[in-house]
């Protein structure tokens, strides 16, 4: 029993030495420890059979070693008995040394084999796993890169295709309009091009149209791009011919310069006082430049004050004043540009039948009713004006009264938003013929084939009798509008502040413009 104990101690020392020597033998050390545990278990069980091991190879090795150990122990016992009979201690020590020597060569090859298996197996599998995971991650990265790049390329291609289609469509529309240029339109365009937009104007545009709360903010970069494009084209083609200048102005669905110029357009008006009192005094005429987009009731009070300041004999009351031109009473609730007269008389006395005074409040109510109807035509159930705050209604009206373009457009911008994906339902158009009420029917911007409808088509559906002989010309904002103009362009750029496109039919023989 003492000999057995000594052998066990030797094994433990061997293990500790291996552990301290080098780190790369850790797995081998673990294997050795396991073997020691097995030996201890064998000793404890008294040499009984082992439970089944997961590795058959190890099982055989352990059995062989156990048998050898038993034989050695049996031999030692026999020798011990013989020595006990002889009673010689030195002989016992010599016998112990060869036993140890036998043990170490027996374990060497087995130990090496164990080391080799333990060391190569896990490392091989580890390396395999490492390389596999590395390959997988790199493959995933490549796949993701490919996906992202393909998405980016497709997005760019789609955007380019969309813009290309849009521009080609515009070019087609413009190509049709160029040959039909009229003198007035050319003059207006030259005037617009000559006034080069300054940096302040560019800043104003951004301030006017940028709004973080706008649900259609995605469209703003495109609008800005359109502005930039128009500005650059305008700069490049400053010295171009008239037809090319027209291309510049017509480019883009919304044109800031056109809207600004139409807002600022004014008409000279001469007011003559016609008093029926037969006093013999002749008052000097009063002259005023009135905005085409405005309404006479907004300015009559101020004009009367100016007249009274010069002529003490004039005793006119704004409630009893009415306007007449060429013997016909004026419909002062129409926009000034629609009222064709250049010379107007102030009159007092009994009004002609059907002529009612129009106060500022009444004019505001008429304006708002037209605005709501126009926007109902454009968006139907999604009409915006009725859902607006009262402050915004007031802002639209007061901006018109006080001639504030940017205040007006900060609200009106929302009423003019449309795109190819979400076009206007109908374009609000009213046609005026002298001596008749205005004519108005539904005017969709596209026909059944999806092609843009033009002014000629709208007029033909509205009043075929006026357009068939070519004896009428159609004027809006004092401009003879080409019949090939798309309705969507008119709806966005030629609308008056009440959002209606008011068009006057004038005989070609008529001298009024």
């Amino acid at each position, binding site marked *: 029993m003492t000999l057995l104990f000594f052998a066990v101690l030797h094994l433990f020392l061997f293990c500790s030495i291996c552990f301290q020597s080098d780190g790369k033998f850790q797995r081998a050390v673990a294997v050795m420890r396991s073997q020691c545990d097995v030996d201890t278990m064998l000793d404890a069980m008294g040499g009984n059979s082992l439970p089944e091991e997961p590795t058959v190879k190890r099982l055989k090795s352990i059995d062989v070693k156990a048998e050898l150990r038993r034989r050695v122990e049996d031999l030692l016992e026999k020798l011990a008995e013989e020595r006990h009979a002889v009673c010689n201690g030195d002989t016992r020590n010599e016998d112990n040394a060869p036993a140890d020597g036998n043990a170490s060569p027996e374990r060497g090859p087995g130990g090496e084999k164990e080391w080799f298996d333990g060391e190569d197996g896990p490392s091989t599998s580890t390396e395999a796993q490492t390389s596999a995971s590395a390959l997988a991650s790199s493959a995933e990265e490549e796949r993701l890169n490919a996906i992202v790049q393909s998405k980016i390329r497709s997005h760019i291609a789609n955007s380019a295709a969309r813009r290309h289609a849009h521009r080609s469509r515009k070019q087609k529309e413009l190509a049709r309009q160029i040959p039909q240029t009229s003198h007035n339109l050319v003059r207006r365009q030259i005037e617009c091009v000559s006034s080069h937009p300054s940096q302040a104007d560019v800043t104003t545009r951004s301030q006017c149209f940028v709004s973080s709360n706008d649900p259609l903010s995605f469209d703003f970069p495109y609008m800005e791009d359109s502005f930039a494009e128009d500005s650059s084209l305008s700069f490049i083609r400053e010295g171009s011919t008239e037809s090319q200048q027209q291309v510049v102005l017509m480019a883009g669905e919304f044109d800031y310069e056109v809207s600004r110029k139409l807002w600022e357009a004014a008409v000279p008006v001469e007011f003559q006082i016609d008093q029926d009192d037969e006093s013999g005094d002749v008052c000097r005429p009063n002259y005023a430049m009135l905005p085409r987009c405005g309404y006479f009731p907004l300015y009559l009070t101020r004009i009367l004050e100016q007249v009274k300041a010069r002529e003490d004999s004039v005793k006119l009351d704004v409630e009893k004043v009415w306007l007449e031109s060429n013997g016909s009473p004026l419909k002062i*609730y129409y926009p000034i540009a629609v009222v064709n007269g250049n010379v107007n008389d102030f009159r007092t006395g009994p009004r002609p039948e059907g002529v009612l005074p*129009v106060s500022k409040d009444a004019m505001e109510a008429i304006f708002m009713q037209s605005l709501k109807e126009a926007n109902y035509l454009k968006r139907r159930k999604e009409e915006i004006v009725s859902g607006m705050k009262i402050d915004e209604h007031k802002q639209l009206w007061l901006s018109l009264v006080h001639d504030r373009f940017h205040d007006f457009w900060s609200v009106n911008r929302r009423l003019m938003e449309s795109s190819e994906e979400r076009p206007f339902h109908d374009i609000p158009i009213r046609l005026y013929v002298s001596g008749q009420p205005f004519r108005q029917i539904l005017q969709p911007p596209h026909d059944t084939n999806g092609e843009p409808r033009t002014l000629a088509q709208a007029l033909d559906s509205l009043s075929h009798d006026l357009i068939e002989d070519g004896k009428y010309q159609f004027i809006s904002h004092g401009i003879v509008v080409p019949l090939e103009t798309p309705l969507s362009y008119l709806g966005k750029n030629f609308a008056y502040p009440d959002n209606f496109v008011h068009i006057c039919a004038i005989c070609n023989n008529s001298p009024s413009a």
Partner: protein
Amino acid sequence: MTFSRRMFLNVFTKGAHISNSELGICAKQSVMVRFRGEAVNRQVHITYNSTYNVPVLWFNFYRRDGTPLTTSEVLEMANNEDSMEITQYISLNEHPILGVLFYNVHPCKTKDIMNELTGKGNYIAK
């Protein structure tokens, strides 16, 4: 309830004068009513609005000498009705047939209002 042009013709044929012209169809009614102890003529016209697909009520009041009542007087007349809130929907505008200014009830709410009517009684007489 979808209000169509044919229904418009059927409903308003009885008891009114129908005027048909190339500018549209108009049902007219002219009666004398009392205002501040004075007899005034009340003109009531009904036209069809193609934008909203609803009928539009046009009206005006004239004194014996032919002069129309002022806006404040007309609104005072309207306030005598059962519903005082209707005055916010009344304003001047051009009559589509006559081409002169008349008072009208804004058609933008007519469709919603008529959807709520039960069809009992004569609403116009009220």
